[in-house]
């Protein structure tokens, strides 16, 4: 990995549905350990961009590079193989299972020896590993034997994020879709702490959210989409909220940012 190479780079991504352009030549990068907010009103193209990143949707044109290497994702599994994990708004946790089982699902540890050949689970090892994974994220939560249906919304979000994070390689990329949508203020802070903790470990994070305070609190950079175009791409610290809101509503566009027009040649 060359220093300075973005962890994830989307170059000139366009997504067409017939004549409608969900995304129009959007360029988007995330550096290792960077947290980038992806903002925009409904219909701006945020979900579509996330889908391209996570391998759910193939772009009509443009390239996706992960740590400098070009990739073509034909399915979410390809994206996962490249080190990208996504946490959807519906979380998709198994309610009757406890935290440990949800974290281990799909990578369950088996007992050593003949019992293991028959597929017998090593429950103690699963519990230990899940606890270790949560400890590594520096978040104190319910005991790993607690069924997730008994957890609060914030704790469930933490489990869903931890599940994705545990499957990331070093310098992986985590995509979060509205992680604090249904959460109160205190619970959102839990999630915020977890995001920062992950970024400190070198994970790149793309955060789609309507929650502007969260975006300003935790993100290094802010990217705004409007009607399929990128209208702003700025370090968070340098710009005020009102300006960002005007970018979101489309009232204005970042100074100096060129919006590609139909017929323009692709960027170099």
């Amino acid at each position, binding site marked *: 990995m060359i220093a300075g190479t973005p962890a994830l780079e989307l170059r000139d991504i366009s997504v067409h549905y017939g004549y409608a352009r969900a995304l129009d030549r959007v360029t988007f990068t995330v550096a290792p350990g960077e947290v980038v907010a992806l903002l925009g009103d409904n219909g701006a193209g945020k979900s579509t961009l996330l889908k391209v990143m996570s391998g759910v949707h193939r772009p009509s044109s443009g390239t996706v590079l992960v740590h400098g290497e070009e990739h073509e994702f034909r399915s*979410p*599994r390809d994206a*996962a193989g490249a080190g990208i994990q996504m946490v*959807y708004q*519906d979380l*998709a*946790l*198994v*309610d*009757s*299972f406890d935290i440990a*089982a*949800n974290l281990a*699902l*799909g*990578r*369950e540890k*088996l007992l050593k020896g003949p019992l293991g050949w*028959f*597929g*017998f*689970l090593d*429950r103690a090892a699963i519990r230990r590993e899940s*606890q270790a994974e949560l400890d590594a994220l*520096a*978040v*104190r*939560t*319910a*005991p790993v034997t*607690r069924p997730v*249906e*008994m*957890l*609060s919304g*914030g*704790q469930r979000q933490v489990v869903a994020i931890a*599940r994705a994070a545990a*499957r990331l390689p070093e310098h992986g990329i985590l995509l979060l879709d509205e992680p604090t949508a249904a959460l*109160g203020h*205190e*619970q959102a*802070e*839990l999630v*915020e*702490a977890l995001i*920062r*903790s992950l970024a400190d470990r070198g994970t790149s994070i793309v955060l789609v959210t309507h929650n502007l305070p969260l975006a300003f609190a935790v993100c290094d950079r802010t990217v705004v989409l409007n009607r399929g175009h990128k209208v702003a791409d700025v370090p968070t610290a340098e710009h005020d909220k009102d300006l960002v809101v005007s970018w979101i509503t489309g009232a204005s566009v970042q100074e100096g940012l060129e919006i590609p027009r139909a017929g323009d040649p692709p960027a170099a």
Partner: protein
Amino acid sequence: MTVTGSIHQVSPGKKLPTNVRGLLFVRDQGLLVLWLAIIVIFAFWGAPHFFTVPTGVSILNSASIAAIYAAGVGVGVMTGVLDLSVPATAAFSGVVTALLLKEGAPVAVAILAGLIAGVAIGVINGLIVIRGFNGLIVTIAMLTSLSGVSLLLANNTNISQLTELRFLGTQTYLGIPAPVYIAVVLYAALTIFLRMTRNGMRLLAVGGNAEAARRVGIPVDRYRVAGFAISGFCAAVGGIVTAAYITTAVPGPSIGIVFSAMTAVALAGIPFSGGRGSLPRVALGAVVIATMSAGLLLAKVSSNWSAIITGALLIGGLALNMWTTNMTSKLLLSGQDVPDKKVTR
């Protein structure tokens, strides 16, 4: 940055609050308490014949066969599948085994063929359902058509005098009839499979939240078919054991089987939404129903009242279960804060 994560952060050593643990006890042991209550009631009401060994053995017998079917339906429900074709699969397996016996095949071969037939029906059900068809409708369709197949194969008559199967039916070992042993072994195997193996866990995950399983890369369709296969296998065991018990293979389906099975599953508190449940409790549910039936019979209650009481029992069991689940959630999510726990960064 210090974050006070006060919402429901319980330190690792702390147990659930007492009132919640009490509720969970009611939910978990309620059925056992109910059963004991029924026994006590009928010991007096159905005296002098109820509280006797012959009645006990008879209850065990009918409970075992019902429990075998209930295992199939129960595992199906837990893995996200409601298999209504069980009566037809049971009859079909019974007919297959009986026909082979009549042709002179060795007993082991005939039984094996019957079991494989049951699994095959389950797999066919599964393969159709994963194409996107509604599981309920598919299994009902299978119930109808498979019944026709069984009747065709058996030439519209019962196949009787299956004395070779007696060792599985009325034969007692140490005073206990064979079906009881079969039911116990089946339950032990399935419970261990679901609780302790990786495939069992994944099967439950698919039943509980197929999307969650899909997200972590589990091949959901494969497990759905497996759920149907297990249901078909249990139906086959039930059909063969029933044929053994009455030494006759009846090609027509006994639809009542599946409703008793569902009642036992519901009494055991297994939600039909899938993903969770205790199989041993399903067995207890079957025992409760059998005890109730025997008791009402011996107390000379008319069958109409019997039906009403059983239905009321079912609703009562469901209601108790819903109440304890809701109360548990409410108690855990309110006023259980531990305000001094901090997440330090």
